[in-house]
């Protein structure tokens, strides 16, 4: 039997007060035309300001905090440590990923649950970059907590008590991936290269890089790339929506260029941390 989409049959006892005069459709999207502004008044091909810092959690082997506009993420790396008892012998190391959200990450208070889909995507984005042979028989755990999800505050629908799908910004995932690779580097796990990740949304004919929740809710398609900038290799790629081949090429190139820039920011953050340590 299919898992029914989470239509909350039990009526919620409490609700968030919502501004009723707010239009359900934000003014950003009016047909195919180019003359609209992004909600945070960025250019179409402009990413949100990115900030990374290592060493956010002392009790972890390595950790990093990342902030892209409103999206705030902490990633801790533990290990390499003993694999779970039930695991079979393996002559290469294991990677275990988990992504969860705080209850206040979304505009409407959520359940703060694990995000299985993101966990598996994070795993796939990282596994191609980590040299698993360097820690045989053991496990490296990568745990991410999304403190705040992207998208501006209180953008929401009219009837919240009927909200049956929790809308996580898919745009959080690239931030989680990039932050995780900085945390892995901080933990001293051997990697071929850092993994930088960027997504684009396609609205009409336009490509919007690093979209926020509002933009994602009206997108016609999306493309997310995780890549190793110095090796120029793609470790993870997901595409939804309809794309012609030339349009896809354009979007991919845009993502790759942005990832290269993001990679530089990540690298300089690590360098800074290392030089601080030496002093």
């Amino acid at each position, binding site marked *: 039997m299919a898992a029914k989409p989470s239509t909350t049959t039990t009526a919620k006892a409490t609700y968030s007060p919502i501004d009723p005069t707010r239009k359900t459709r934000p003014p950003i999207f009016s047909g195919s035309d180019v003359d609209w502004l992004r909600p945070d008044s960025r250019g179409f091909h402009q990413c949100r300001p990115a900030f990374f810092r290592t060493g956010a959690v002392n009790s972890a082997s390595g950790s990093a905090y990342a902030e892209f506009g409103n999206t705030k993420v902490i990633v801790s790396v533990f290990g390499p440590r003993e694999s779970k008892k039930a695991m079979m012998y393996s002559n290469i190391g294991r990677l275990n990923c988990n992504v969860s959200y705080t209850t206040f990450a979304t505009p409407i208070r959520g359940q*703060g649950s694990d995000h299985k889909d993101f966990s598996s995507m994070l795993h796939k984005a990282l596994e191609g970059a980590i040299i698993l042979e360097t820690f045989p028989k053991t496990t490296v755990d990568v745990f991410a907590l999304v403190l705040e999800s992207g998208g501006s505050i209180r953008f929401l629908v009219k009837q919240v008590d009927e909200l049956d799908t929790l809308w996580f910004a898919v745009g959080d995932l690239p931030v989680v991936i990039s932050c995780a690779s900085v945390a892995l580097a901080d933990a001293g796990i051997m990697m071929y290269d850092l993994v930088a990740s960027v997504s684009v949304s396609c609205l009409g004919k336009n490509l919007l890089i690093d979209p926020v929740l509002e933009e994602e809710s009206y997108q016609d398609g999306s493309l997310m790339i995780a890549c190793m900038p110095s090796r120029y290799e793609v470790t993870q790629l997901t595409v939804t929506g309809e794309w012609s081949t030339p349009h896809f090429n354009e979007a991919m190139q845009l993502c790759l260029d942005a990832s290269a820039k993001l990679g530089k920011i990540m690298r300089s953050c690590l360098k800074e941390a290392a030089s601080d340590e030496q002093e």
Partner: protein
Amino acid sequence: MGLPNASEDLSSEMEVDAFRRLFPLRYFERHLAESIRPDARSLSRARNTTISMGAVASADGSALAKIGSTTMLAAIKMEVMTPSLESPDEGCVSIDFHMPPICSPLVRPGRPAEAAPVVAKQLSDTISSSGMINLKELSLVGGKAAWMVYLDIYCLDADGALFDAALLSAVAAFSNLQIPTVSLDDGKIVMLPEEQKEENSEKEPVNKEKRKLTLGGIPFSLTCILHKNYILADPTSEEESIMETLVTVVLDSSNQLVSLYKPGGAVLAYTSAVQDCIALTRQRVKELHQILEEAISGMEID
């Protein structure tokens, strides 16, 4: 004699780090005899403590509290509920304490930490019994609508004294709380649109005067370790794992005792030891009060 003597003999020739891992208790006791702790604190000193307000933009009130490297993020979200029949003019406060897997190597996904429910219970007991929050202030329309306050506290880094840090972040989040202005529309509470807040239009806000909660006696706490005759204030997780007898004292701002926990442990405390703990807490309350005041006034300048 077996081990203790062996460690004594070895201590002169072993590297410090190896000695610390092999004979943690000896290692600590040696420090304690010199009235100093491995992190260079004196026995009664708490770690450096900071509070930053408004850390979470999507919440109605939030704060990040750090005691040493123990980090707590507390955020409050306000929702509307129908009050219960027994108390029609009171709101409600729900407190959750989470230890996500990022905070400590001991927590794994899917298996909640053992400490989490204990701290959660202590927190809600303390906050409700301290009388810090007057539930009547949370009423919007008597019998019809009241605020449900969801307070969620996340431990981002667990390094001992979890309850102290959690309580501090909770108190700070409450003092940071800005209650949204709402009005009554067709039996439902709705948010007042930004532009209508200034000019008094057709909809009258129901809670114009009540944007901030008046906090009654604010509770502050200090956890101490009892070991032999020593009292160690504000333990790290390493200290907690080696010496297991903990005493947590909660006092409010006028130094009244709100609660006192001594959940078992190997050391049976003399009343004098408990009194010493209370005295230490009294000092700590002054410190914390000042740190909180500074954090609040720092917020107002911004």
